[in-house]
Structure formats: C-alpha cells, structure tokens
C-alpha cells in the first residue's frame, strides 16, 4: 500500500515535470545574443525554423500581425499609408546581415534601449502590465519572425 502511494506520486511528479517542460519549450525558444561589427546579432534561426519570404510579406502587411507598414515605408506600392516613424526598408538587406535583422526583430531595444519598436519576440515575462489575453504570448511566433526575416533579406533596393 505504502509503496503504491510512493509510486503513484512519483508518477504524478514526473508527468507534471514532463508536461510543464513541454509547454515552456513550445512557447518560447531561447536564443543566444552575439556581436557582429559591434551590433547585436542572433546567428541561429529561432527554434531552427526556416522562413518563407512570401508568407513574410503577408505578415508585414497584416495589421493584426507584423504591421511593419505602420512605421516603415516598404517596397509594397499596392498598400496605402506607409508609416514614417522608422527608417525605410527598401534596401534593408544591404545594410544588415540576417543575424543582425533577427536581433532587431526579436527586440529592437537590444540595439537602442529607447526604441519605440516593439520586441516582437521579447520574453512575455518582461512586459509591464501585459493584458490578460496576451499573457505568456510573444507578439509574433518564431515562425512569423523567420518568415519576415526571409522577406526582408529579399529587399536589396533595386525595386
């Protein structure tokens, strides 16, 4: 009887540990910050995912997702109202490497602590007074980030 209880509770604990680790691993991929020409850079793709430029363009336009156009002018003439807050992104792939773009997408405050740009893959615990429905969530998923980076890398300025 006593053995049974010990066995059962050990099982419960191990199941709980396995589950909780799974949830954490699913929701947020860790990344390593490096330096490239004195700029913050993240070399490895988030969660080792591969980006798709076509999807990335759609996410950049979507007001509910990336909404990059809110602040940046981009070579997307079919959309009206490009924002003027951030720098234009026509030749962004010429200016920054993939790793530097990733660091800026994950959290622009790594580059400039005063930046207005949201940390699109900032850890959810680091937000202040996050609304209840966004608790534990990043702004964009790791796949979204990789898609946008794949799209940005196509912007070399000749359009």
């Amino acid at each position, binding site marked *: 009887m006593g053995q049974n209880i010990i066995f059962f509770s050990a099982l419960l604990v191990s199941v709980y540990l396995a589950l909780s680790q799974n949830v954490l691993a699913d929701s947020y991929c860790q990344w390593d910050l490096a330096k490239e020409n004195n700029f913050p850079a993240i070399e490895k793709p988030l969660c080792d995912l591969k980006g798709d430029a076509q999807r990335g363009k759609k996410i950049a336009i979507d007001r509910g997702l990336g909404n990059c156009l809110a*602040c940046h002018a981009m070579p997307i003439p079919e959309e009206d109202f490009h924002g*003027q807050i951030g720098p234009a992104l026509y030749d962004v792939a010429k200016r920054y490497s993939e790793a530097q773009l990733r660091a800026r997408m994950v959290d622009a405050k790594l580059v400039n602590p005063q930046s207005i740009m*949201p940390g699109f893959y900032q850890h959810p615990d680091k937000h202040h007074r996050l609304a209840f429905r966004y608790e534990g969530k990043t702004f964009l998923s790791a796949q979204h980030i990789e898609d946008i980076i794949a799209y940005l890398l196509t912007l070399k300025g000749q359009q």
Partner: protein
Amino acid sequence: MKTSGLLVCWIMLYSMQIMAQPPVPTSGYDFLGKDIQAIQDDEFLNPGMPTVELGSQIFQESEEGEKSCASCHGEEGQMMDKAKIASYPAYQKKYKKVHTLQERIHACWTDKQDRFPLLYDDPKLVALETFVRSLARGTVIDVEVNQHSRALYEQGEKLYKKRFGQMAMTCHHCHVQYQGIFMRGRKLTQGQTNGFPVYRFNSDRVTSLHRRFNECFVELRAEPFEAGSQEYKALEFYIGVMSNGLKVETPAVRF
C-alpha cells in the same frame, strides 16, 4: 585650440537644451482636416452637443427638497468662474488632495446636494463634466502644480514615460517624440486634454479622458487601470500641465 573646444562644448550644450525643451503645445484641432474642424466649430453640427444639452438638464434637476446645481451656480451655470473651470485638475485645500473636474462636480453632488454617490465616469457625471467644461470654451488652460500636488505630478510623469503592454511603448514615444508623424494612416497628435470629454468618430460617442486612456491601453495590449484610479488621475494632471496655454474646446471632435 582651447577656444574651439569651448565653442564645441557650447554648441553641444545649446543643442541639448533645444532638444530638452518640451514641444510647443498644439491642440488636436490643428491635426484635423478643414471639414472636421468645421463640424467642431458649428454648434448645430457638433455631435458632442446633445451630451452638453443632457448635462445642462441634469444641472437643473433637483431631488425633492434638495438644491440643484443651478440653485447656486445660475440657471445656465453663468455664476461659475471660467478660469477656474480651465484650471482643473486642481489642488483642493478643503479635501487636501487634487480633484479632477469630474471629482469636483461629484463632491458637490454628494456633499452639497446629498445625493447618492456615483461611480467615476458615470454617464451622468460625464454629461455634467461636458456641460461645465463647455462653458469655459475658449478659456486658456492653466493647471498649476504646487508643493502639495508635486508628488502626483511626478507620478504622472513616471507613468507617461513607462512602457506598457505587449507593444511596450510609452505615451511619450507617440505624443512627444513622434508627434506630427504618420503611423500608417494616422497622424500622431500631442494627445492634449483640452478637448475632453471629446466626441470620437471611432466609437461614435462622447468619451471621457479616463475612458480614452483605457482605449490607449487596449491598443498597447496592456491591462488598463480603472477609471478614477490614482494612476489615471496622475496622468490627467501631468497631461493637463502639458496642455497649459491651449484653449478649452469641449466638446471637441476627434477621430
């Protein structure tokens, strides 16, 4: 060599001083198109006017045996000091704290008229506030900070410059640093409070300042504070000081 170094130092200090200076207060009115401005200016077209009318009715109502607002302040509120209306939020010696205009009206409501207390941003109070502030239309705003209200002002400044929500932006980013610049289709205004309570086309209603704060917080994907909370009062006070020199436009018309 020495003099050129001094010159460089002076230029740097001078440019820092220019950058540190707050922007010239500009009303949200100046960010609107001519057609919308015309709607605000026309007493019959202005969609905020029905709320003013409602407020003036409540102003004249009284419960049995009790005084109405009009009993002391005049039938149309003409006995009230316009400059004083434009000076809220203001420190109240009697209550030893800063009152927003709505709180001041509510203090009369409960103390002088002995009516049942209302929650902050109750539609009746918003209507009364809209009516009372509309009496001071065109009066220059003059919100004063004294030694008693200094702490609240500083709390407001802290909140104004704090990042909130998943967007992790501050009020200061949009309304000071990038004011006048386009964010997608919208030109960012200075977020001045001289027009509040304000009629908004977006929500098709007269919106109190604290409700507008809530809407901003939701856009930032942040958990809002409550209407009438200490935090919102501090923000109202801080932005009120920023609005000094502008004219009261209540009920203003905005997007």
